[in-house]
């Protein structure tokens, strides 16, 4: 028997168009990044790595990359730690207003980023009286990434038999010892995958970083600054190619780690991020 989609040619055409629509812009990136010509247009004029070389020679870009990396690393650490608390609490503990509190953690997922950005700017500059800097961006990104980290970790904790920690305590471990020796190793793949995903989100995030950037420039903000100079477009393409490649590598790595961890622990796959 054929799968149902094969019986409806219209569905197949829809799927192809959908995929084209989804991936065409991404496929264009490397095509023009490796194109010799200055102008983003067909026909292509020849293979070249000159745009990547140009990238390499820009100090302003280096500092943007550095800021972005620092922000992304710190964000992934903080968001994952908060995610662990939220996911463990959600899976194992019982407390008043649990549903509401968990929902509140997830709220930034559905909040328009621009609203979040403005609100954070007001909070940082007017209420706290701080100048926007690298760490205010870390703060904001942590807020935004925590729900993603939490939902990845929810899967890891939901897989876990709650009596495992109790068994460890029953065998003489303290609460912390039980968590460290049993829960932590079992959710480690989830932790790594949450960190990688937070890292990618933070690295790509533009709106909030733009509002809160102050004197630091993150990578997306830097790219935004290049947009009006048409001779810079191939450079943006090259940069975009690197970012997309990096994102794909990290996402695949996160998923492989998660699956391998599950297999090693002999646990059911409750669905990850991919």
């Amino acid at each position, binding site marked *: 028997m054929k799968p149902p989609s094969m019986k409806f040619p219209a569905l197949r055409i829809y799927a192809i168009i959908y995929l084209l629509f989804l991936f065409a812009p991404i496929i264009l990136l490397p095509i023009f990044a490796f194109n010799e010509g200055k102008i983003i247009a067909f026909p292509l004029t020849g293979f070249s790595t000159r745009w990547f070389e140009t990238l390499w020679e820009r100090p302003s870009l280096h500092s943007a990359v550095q800021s972005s990396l620092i922000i992304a690393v710190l964000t992934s650490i903080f968001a994952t730690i908060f995610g662990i608390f939220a996911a463990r609490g959600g899976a194992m503990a019982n407390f008043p207003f649990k549903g509401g509190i968990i929902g509140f953690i997830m709220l930034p997922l559905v909040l328009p980023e621009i609203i979040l950005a403005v609100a954070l700017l007001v909070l940082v500059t007017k209420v706290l009286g701080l100048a926007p800097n690298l760490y205010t961006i870390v703060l904001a990104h942590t807020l935004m990434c925590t729900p993603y980290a939490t939902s990845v970790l929810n899967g890891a904790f939901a897989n876990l*038999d709650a*009596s*495992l920690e*109790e*068994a*460890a*305590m*029953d*065998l*003489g*471990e*303290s609460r912390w010892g039980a968590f460290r*020796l*049993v829960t932590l*190793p*079992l959710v480690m793949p989830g932790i790594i995958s949450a960190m990688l995903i937070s890292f990618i989100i933070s690295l790509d995030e533009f709106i909030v970083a733009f509002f809160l950037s102050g004197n630091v420039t993150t990578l997306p903000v830097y790219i935004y600054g290049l947009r009006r100079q048409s001779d810079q477009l191939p450079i943006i393409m090259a940069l975009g190619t690197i970012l997309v490649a990096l994102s794909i590598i990290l996402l695949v790595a996160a998923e492989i780690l998660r699956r391998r961890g599950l297999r*090693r*622990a*002999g*646990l059911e796959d409750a669905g990850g991020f991919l």
Partner: protein
Amino acid sequence: MSGSPLITLRGVNKHYGDYHALRDIELEIRQGEFFSLLGPSGCGKTTLLRTIAGFEDLSSGTLMIDGKDMARVPANERPTNMVFQSYAIFPHLSVAQNVAFGLRRDSRPKAEKARAVAEALEMVGLAGYGGRAAHALSGGQRQRVALARALILQPKVLLLDEPLSALDKKMREQMQVELIRLQRNVGITFILVTHDQEEALVMSDRIAVMFEGSIGQMADPETLYRRPNSRRVADFIGKMNFLSAEVTAAGATVDLDVQGLGRGSIARDQAPNGAPAGPAVVGIRPETLTIVFDGEHTDRRTIDGVVDEVVYYGDMTYYDVRVPGVDEPLHLSMRNVIGRPVLDVGTPTRISWDERALVLLDA
């Protein structure tokens, strides 16, 4: 099996919000005893076990283990170890690492610990399995690892939450025998939770039957089976026929008029709750009723009936027999011995019974 009790519960109550999960539990468990908590699903067996293990706080009452009040003692400092219903084997560790888990705080040299692990594995019949990955074990093997992991710490009390319920019938019967043997050998007090009455009868020195958070009856298996103190207990443990009756006189013996069986008298101890004059219910076990086959003779009293249903079990045959004057057909079971036919539905038959098999329950 004497001296002061190892575990004492006094007036123990447990509330989950509005739900009253444990009601006024009074319990004493002696050193070295094999004690079972038996009851239908949701009656609070696990809750009671977790209370003793230290995973649940008491809402009221006291729990003493070995003479010490456990109110402020956390689970990891109690002299109890638990075999969880799910076994809770650590999936990321090997069998040996699982068994050695509780020895982490032990200051003995490594070689000695390794020897203890090997011994524990041997005790549960898993010698040589130490290097295996825990998640690759079968249900029965997991259960043994869980046992070894708990026993290696030589707890005063081993708590077992339905440890055999995940196993198939054959395996379960084999493990029952092994658990009994193990318990005799190590001399540790076992508290077993089960909803399988047969398992409780086979394994226990004493059984507490629980209903809806309270203990209905606590006794040794034979007393529980022969002298249940209520219809509920009688119904839960084995099969029982219930007949309405009338207590006509109660002195050194109790005189009864039983529906379908007629007048008779029973000893005082066949009425665990006393024998107030008036309407009552009498219980009689299926295996104490016997079909008198053609050509057989009996000195016991008999009643006549008609076979209503037959279930053939190989070694046994179960009959339902309709008796005039009795509302429900009587259940009875006969061993299939050579020369005895299996009767067909509709066969008129004679049943013999004995007054000593009756138990007087509340009306």
